[in-house]
């Protein structure tokens, strides 16, 4: 009994007040996964990166930034990943905008747009080589119609990797944008119409501002996907030159030079660059309205 004479609240009630109950056990599998498959490897890599084979704790980081061939991979990867992510988001907006309502065949169109997710990078690369290669259909059509005199080089260079990232990244962007768009109450645009806004104003004044936070998130996700590009950089790119992306540098350090600490350092730098980009985008995102948009999404 407490001083006031009332019985003490049962400990289970007090825990429940703080959100502690038996349902928390459901989190265990997820926690195990996060700890075993993310936190442990991450901190293992982080500590490893400060234990270079020679020199002080930061010498592998210094080594990366002092070598222009290595340092340049950051720029190369950004030059591929930023435009690819941007194009994916920008291309997804009009298509998702057109498809947010209900219409016959919507499921079929959505399936077609999303199929590239299931293909995987290797199959996409194979297809790109066959279609866009020097003797592929694309060039044969261009040559046959006399639009060009010699095959356009679209594989084994920047454009090959870029196109591969667009093909695999677009479905993600499209699905995300579509769900963000269907979260915006369609009555808002109808209201804007009755107030005298034509479709351009309805889009720029109402839909787009409400969609911007979603677009920022979508951009971040597709950017991260694109920034860690690896297979297509080798298969349809020029891995020794213009598409020597940062993950390739880490791979070479780890499995060609067997220098795990250096590879870990590169991986940490890679993660840091991604974080910087995401931080910039999210900072811009916070300038927009991010509350409820009234829809059912």
């Amino acid at each position, binding site marked *: 009994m407490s001083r006031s004479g009332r019985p003490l609240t049962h400990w289970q009630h007090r825990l429940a007040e703080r959100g502690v109950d038996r349902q928390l056990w459901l989190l265990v599998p997820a926690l195990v996964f996060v700890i075993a498959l993310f936190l442990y490897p991450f901190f293992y890599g982080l500590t490893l990166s400060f234990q270079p084979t020679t020199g002080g704790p930061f010498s592998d980081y210094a080594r990366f930034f002092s070598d222009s061939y290595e340092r340049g991979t950051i720029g190369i990867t950004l030059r591929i990943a930023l435009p690819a992510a941007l194009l994916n988001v920008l291309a997804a907006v009009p298509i998702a905008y057109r498809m947010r309502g209900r219409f016959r065949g919507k499921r079929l169109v959505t399936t077609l747009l999303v199929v590239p997710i299931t293909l995987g990078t290797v199959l996409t690369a194979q297809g790109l080589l066959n279609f866009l290669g020097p003797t592929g259909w694309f060039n044969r059509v261009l040559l046959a119609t006399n639009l060009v005199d010699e095959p356009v080089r679209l594989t084994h260079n920047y454009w090959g990797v870029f196109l591969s990232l667009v093909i695999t990244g677009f479905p993600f962007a499209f699905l995300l944008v579509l769900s963000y768009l269907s979260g915006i*109450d369609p*009555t*808002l645009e*109808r*209201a*804007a*119409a*009755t*107030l*005298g*806004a*034509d479709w351009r*104003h309805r889009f720029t*004044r*109402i839909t787009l*501002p*409400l969609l911007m936070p979603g677009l920022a998130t979508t951009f971040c996700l597709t950017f991260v996907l694109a920034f860690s590009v690896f297979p297509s950089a080798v298969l349809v790119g020029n891995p020794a030159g213009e598409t020597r992306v940062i993950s390739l540098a880490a791979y070479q350090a780890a499995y060609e030079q067997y220098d795990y600490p250096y590879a870990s350092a590169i991986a940490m730098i890679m993660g840091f660059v991604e974080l910087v980009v995401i931080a910039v985008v999210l900072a811009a995102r916070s300038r*927009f*309205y991010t*509350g*409820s*948009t*009234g829809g059912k999404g």
Partner: protein
Amino acid sequence: MSAFSQLRLDGVSRRFGGQAALTELDLTIGAGEFIALLGPSGCGKSTALNCLAGLLPLTAGSIWQDERRIDTLPPERRGFGMVFQSYALFPHLTVRANIAFGLRMRRLPKEETRRRTDEAVRLVRLEDHVDKLPGQLSGGQQQRVAIARAVVFEPSLVLMDEPLSNLDAKLRLEMRTEIRRLHQSLGLTTVYVTHDQEEALSLADRLVVLREGRVQQIGSPRELHTRPANWHVADFMGYRNLWRGRVERRDGARATVESSGHRLLGEVVGDVQAEAEAVLAVRPEDIRVDGPGEAHNALSATVEVVEYQGRELAAEARTDTGLLLHLRTERRIAPGDQVRLGVDPQRLLVYPADAAAAQTNRVPQASGATR
């Protein structure tokens, strides 16, 4: 926006797939009029409003603003203000920006936009909330923003789609008065959709009752209240007591109806023939309890359920022949009491029975009836 002297809907129809939502609506709206479209859900009233706003294309018919055909114009070129049931306020814009939206779309000079927005804000008494986002406002305040936004650009017509249905009872009454006050002070032509007959009666100059996409009756609140054109309208206008009977005799405007042993005298509405099936309709408040010696329409009944409603009691009583009647009375009655009920023949309306009357249990036979 250009005002008009009249707006004419000419056979306006709308189908969804094979389903007719609105069939040949003919209606002429005069400038400054307050029209209520009234009916149960699914009667086509919102369809009619959306057709008028330009948010739904017509499947047949035309809409004319004086001599100009407007049903082919997109909503943004009609210049009608609309208040949505969900308010549809722009969640990312402040109250001020929401209200000013229509003015900005019209590219009015900054000065004028500001002045007229301020005026509208004052009109709906939201001076203290202009810089808030809609999400920070209460339901009633959001409703006021929606109304201000729809009237600020002085539209030639204001459309309201069940604007009060999301408010609680007290606020609904307040806003109802507010809307009436706005209409009187601004003189804006208004078309108001509602399923609440009380709301429609109190606000509108003229009511249009719809059922299954068709106009049932167009008239003043008084006409609708005292003389619904058919038993469906009566049902909707608060004639809670509906039951069937057979016409024995018709004398001009009066008819004697036999209904399971009772002979009732009522006022004929529509085409009622002797020997034909009829539907009787009476309002709960028109049934008298234990009145002074009734000459006509006396029924003895047992009180079954009593609800306290302040000055009055609402009660259900079953007659000796099994007919359940809803009534309102100031007399203190209790369940189990034997009462004598009476109805003034003027207040007992006799309608011809249609096919629907035989099918629905809304209109029971008097004997053994459950409702």
